[in-house]
């Protein structure tokens, strides 16, 4: 079973973001694997442990993404591939998906797993676009997954609840929280990961797809409506003030 796990490198949530003209200022940023992709890596490893095969971790971006790939190695991935894109626009999902789909096609992958969204762009697009590019099934927001032979059974989150769905390989999956608990890489794994090779592919190797997105510019978040603390003698007093503020000032209720 050939399993591709998608590993996106994103700024740590607690990192301050400084906005540049067309991208953020990367100086001082701490990079992490997007949290949902950790569920994807874990699921890939579990599927391999159960069904055999290999787990290939793929990350797109400049050389700094190799650090995330080493972490995937430390967790237990068998191979790591960097799709080397130096001017990487993290919001260009169609380009990203086309590169990954072309890689997956050449590898003849059975399963592609990524997070339900990356925490820098919240787009929820890439994995399903890869499925469409390959003409295969997809299951989004998976909270459980069972694969035996070529049959796939999963529970997915939908609006208002969950659904049990079935399909057959090949399949693309997006991981939702609840799918599993990602393992921590151990020290031995981390040491070994330092020496493992990272394969690189260039866009030219993968069909040289064109971007369909133009970044017009980045800006800081819009200023919030100025806030204030209410003053009152008791709970009733707070309640009266709040109701008045929300109905007469904010006009939201």
């Amino acid at each position: 079973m050939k399993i591709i796990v998608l590993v996106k490198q994103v700024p740590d949530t607690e990192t301050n973001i400084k906005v540049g003209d067309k991208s953020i200022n990367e100086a001082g940023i701490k990079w992490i694997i997007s949290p949902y992709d950790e569920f994807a890596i874990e699921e890939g490893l579990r599927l391999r442990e159960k069904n055999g095969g290999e787990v290939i971790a793929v990350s797109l971006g400049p050389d700094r993404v190799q650090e995330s790939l080493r972490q995937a190695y430390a967790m237990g991935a068998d191979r790591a591939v960097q799709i080397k894109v130096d001017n990487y626009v993290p919001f260009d999902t169609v380009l990203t998906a086309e590169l990954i789909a072309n890689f997956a096609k050449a590898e003849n992958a059975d399963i592609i797993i990524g997070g339900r969204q990356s925490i820098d762009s919240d787009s929820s697009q890439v994995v399903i676009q890869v499925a469409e590019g390959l003409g295969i099934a997809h299951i989004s927001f998976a909270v459980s997954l069972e694969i035996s032979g070529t049959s796939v059974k999963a529970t997915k989150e939908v609006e208002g609840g969950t659904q049990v769905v079935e399909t057959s390989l090949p399949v693309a999956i997006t991981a939702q929280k609840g799918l599993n608990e990602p393992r921590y890489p151990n020290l031995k794994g981390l040491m070994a990961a330092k020496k493992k090779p990272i394969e690189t592919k260039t866009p030219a190797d993968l069909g040289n797809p064109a971007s369909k997105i133009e970044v017009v510019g980045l800006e800081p978040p819009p200023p919030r409506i100025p806030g204030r603390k209410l003053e009152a003698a008791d709970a009733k007093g707070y309640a009266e003030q709040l109701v008045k503020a929300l109905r007469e000032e904010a006009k939201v209720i």
Partner: protein
Amino acid sequence: MSNVLIVGELKNGELKKISKEITSAGRKIADALGGKVTALLIGSGVEKFAGDLGAVGADSVVTVNAGDFNAETWANLVAGVIKEKNPSVVLVPHTSQGKDYSPRVAVKVGAGIIADAVGLSVDGGKVVAKKPIYSGKAYGNFKVTSPIAIFTVRPNSQEVVQKAGAGAAEAASPSAGDAKVKIVSSDLSGGNKVQLAEASIIVSGGRGIKGPENWPILQGLADILGAALGASRAAVDAGWISHSHQVGQTGKTVSPNCYIACGISGAIQHLAGMGSSKYIVAINKDGDAPIFKVATYGVVGDLFEVVPALTDEFKKVLG
């Protein structure tokens, strides 16, 4: 000519508010570009909503008769209508359903896509989409350069504007194709409640509510306001409520008009999910809690006293 296609969404046979929001947004874009707005509705008996969408700016409404939602067949239907109508701009709700089929549509019609847009404007004949990025710590503006541009639009981000279009309904029957994924069973027990991601008011509880037995205190307030119930990760991890209620980086992103945070400290991962709420009310015992940095109205107090008092007060004015 730049025509706009919006893809509406229904729930339990009713038109969702987001359908009107994106129709109005589509109208504004079409007026700036000199084009027409076509709304697409998929389902059974959807013709009856043509007037509703006409009243908020749709020139025409294409209806496609179909059964239950399936991402693959929906993608085929939407792509089929796009190929027939040839719009240059397509607006899709950024909802569970929209996120499930829109990626396939983009690839099928060779379109670039910007997901989770909260602002749409027109510059030099092209739509500029604004979206929060890096957990709302920055905003980005993007254009799509392919002939067809798709945008998924965040619920509650667009105003509904009454503006009469013709709203003439016409039926279409593009090919749905076969789905590779079969739905075996559904558990939609939470289905009739107000949906968190689309709610215009949210009452949310954190570790400060002390235990699951206290949700009725917040639910009472939510009921009177027609609000959805949210939770912090601490409340979810403690097993007090299911993950589907979690707001934040590893939960749902919400943008209601009003977010009432009760006993929530306001950790950065929580703010990542609700920081773009228009008005934020914080009720917290600790006056130094970070939630007060983003709150429009802050109450330093005990939620077990303030929330019931607030519910009573709203009962008085809202009946």
